[in-house]
């Protein structure tokens, strides 16, 4: 096969997947960016007009959007840190156990197997003021009842707690798999040299699972940015916008109010933010330097 026909052959093989990618990724992205510069209202799409950066200016000036960005970043930082730390702690603990590893592995994973909508609905019932099991339990200890989802001092933390409950097992699973791949000989050598548990953890375990750790952080960072179901079902963004997230803002504007142009602009801003926060991890996980 000569070089030219080899190249044709390669392109022919790549054509289907390239076309598929263009259809499902490139086209929607370009379409979204294009719409973000218009006043596209879905029910009057014929009247769509180019309005330049007006949507972007309006979004940045919107107090609710700024609050949504702050909430999302705060949520991302707290959720990713706590879930990763807890996941790592549990993974190390279970990995060090001599018995019951299998049972714990399976039971630990249950929350992350549930769809977010189901999780939100379950917790909505559990956190109910009068009928919820959480307040009943607290009552036994002589505290409460707490208005978990409507108290401005609690609502954000309640959603954070639910997310941690659901996604710590996911972090655990990846990190546990990472721990399994650490060569046993390194641990044995360290033990022979008289290294303590902490030293072994920081000098052998952690460096070995660093790529997995970055992967967990990357995946959870991207995912926490997309927080929607729990907020929409449990608090509707309130009280006083304290739980509003960027995705919920986009949903309200773009999907519920059908302001496609405005919603598209908010989506573009969100993608930019995700990229800013993900690029470091992506570079690290791809083997480059940040």
């Amino acid at each position, binding site marked *: 096969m000569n070089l030219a026909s080899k190249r044709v052959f390669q392109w022919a093989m790549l054509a289907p997947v390239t076309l598929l990618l263009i259809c499902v990724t490139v086209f929607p992205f370009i379409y979204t960016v294009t719409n973000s510069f218009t006043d596209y209202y879905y*029910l009057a799409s014929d009247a769509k007009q180019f309005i330049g950066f007006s949507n972007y200016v309006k979004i940045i000036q919107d107090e609710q959007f700024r609050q949504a960005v702050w909430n999302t970043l705060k949520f991302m930082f707290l959720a990713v840190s706590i879930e990763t730390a807890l996941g790592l702690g549990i993974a190390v603990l279970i990995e060090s156990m001599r018995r019951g590893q299998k049972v714990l592995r399976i039971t630990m994973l249950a929350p992350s197997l549930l769809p977010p909508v189901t999780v939100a609905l379950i917790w909505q019932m559990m956190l109910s003021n009068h009928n919820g099991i959480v307040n009943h339990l607290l009552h036994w200890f002589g505290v409460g009842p707490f208005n978990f989802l409507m108290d401005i001092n609690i609502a954000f933390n309640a959603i954070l707690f639910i997310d941690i409950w659901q996604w710590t097992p996911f972090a655990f699973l990846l990190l546990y798999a990472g721990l399994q791949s650490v060569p046993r000989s390194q641990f044995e050598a360290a033990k022979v040299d008289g290294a303590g548990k902490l030293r072994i953890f920081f000098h052998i375990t952690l460096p070995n699972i660093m790529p997995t750790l970055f992967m967990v952080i990357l995946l959870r960072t991207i995912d926490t940015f997309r927080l929607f179901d729990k907020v929409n079902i449990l608090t509707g963004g309130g009280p006083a916008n304290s739980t509003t997230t960027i995705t919920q803002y986009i949903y309200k504007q773009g999907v519920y*109010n059908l302001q496609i142009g405005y919603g598209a602009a908010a989506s573009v801003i969100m993608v930019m933010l995700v990229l800013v926060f993900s690029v470091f991890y992506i570079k690290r996980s791809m083997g480059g330097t940040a």
Partner: protein
Amino acid sequence: MRKKMSYMLSLLLTTAVLFTGCQSQGQASGQGSSQGTDKLVIAARGGSHVDAMNAVKESFEKEHNVKVDIIGLEAADLKQKISLDAKNSKGAYDLIMADDPWMPQFSEAGIFAKLSDLGIQEDSDFEESSLALGKSPYAIGDLYALPFSGNVQLFFYNKELLERHNHEVPTNWTDVLETAKAIKAEDGSAGYVIRGQQGNPIVSDFLPLFWAYGGQIFDDNWKAQINSEAGHKALDTYVGLLAVGENYENTDIVGSVSEGRAAMALGWPSWFIKGETASADYTAIPSKAASDAESVSTGMIGNWMMGVTANSQNPELAAEFLTFITSSDTQKQMVEHGGVPTRKSVYQDTELAAKYKHFPVMLEALQNSVARPRTAKWSQVEEALGAELSAAIAGTKTVEQALTDANKAMDDIMQ
């Protein structure tokens, strides 16, 4: 040979990708479509509405030799699906239900077919305030939808709790606040429960107070009037009620008032009333700010409307079903299955009124009800107002600041 096979395979895959794309688009547009005259598809608000329709549709199906498919959806989902389907030349739905505040948006967008074109005329048996919601422009224009479910907010209270502390059922908001304060002080129970979740809940809960204080959300030129004397007084009262009460979502509102942990709350009838039994006592929402104030309409109307889609593939048959499902006879049957009537004759039916004690109160509330502003931008307005009201009750903004910001946000939206 191998090279040719590779090219053929590649071509085949490319064609398959293209074909799949085209096919899925075609399927999406025709999904659930009535395809001929043997099937009608209705996009409905899920729950009791669907149960009620399913219970009575059989006679229509037999008479017209047609299958009626009713798709029950959550409110937000329903609105989204209806809007998306409106762009298809051949609609997936023949009939759609719409919450009454959506009517201006849907009517302006041409989602509904004009009912007079399908042979449906105004019917004076429908309660006037309900029928007005289906017209565009509101109350005076052409008819685009008929009232299917006559929801209207009521004032619920725990009779035993009030009587235990020798309180009458309050008839104005000053008395509501005083009674709530007294019950909180005497009993420790919540005097009043607000429904303060951000968005539609808090707006629906607050507006009856605002109207009682003589407030109007917009003036004739669509300038926001929420930052007004009425707005301040109403929000002060609302915050005052929370101070001697609680802020719950609807399940806890029903539970607390029904079981006597709270004295009073506003709510939709279906929350408290199931068939012949009610878990709490009820009356029309207080219509005055104070005993010496002018009486005004305060009961928020929240009817579910039903209309034929402009892109229905069976508009005539759909119109016949609409006539059937909103007829007096059918409404009487649907009452047994959780239906809420919109016809005066059904409310005034002596047999039904004897069985369903809430009918006279409901009819009175409907006749004195208030519709939310008839603007296509209502959902945006509601969202902005809801956020500011939520800030006021959470204490992150003063009443003054919240109303100022709400007014500005509403004016920006209406520009």
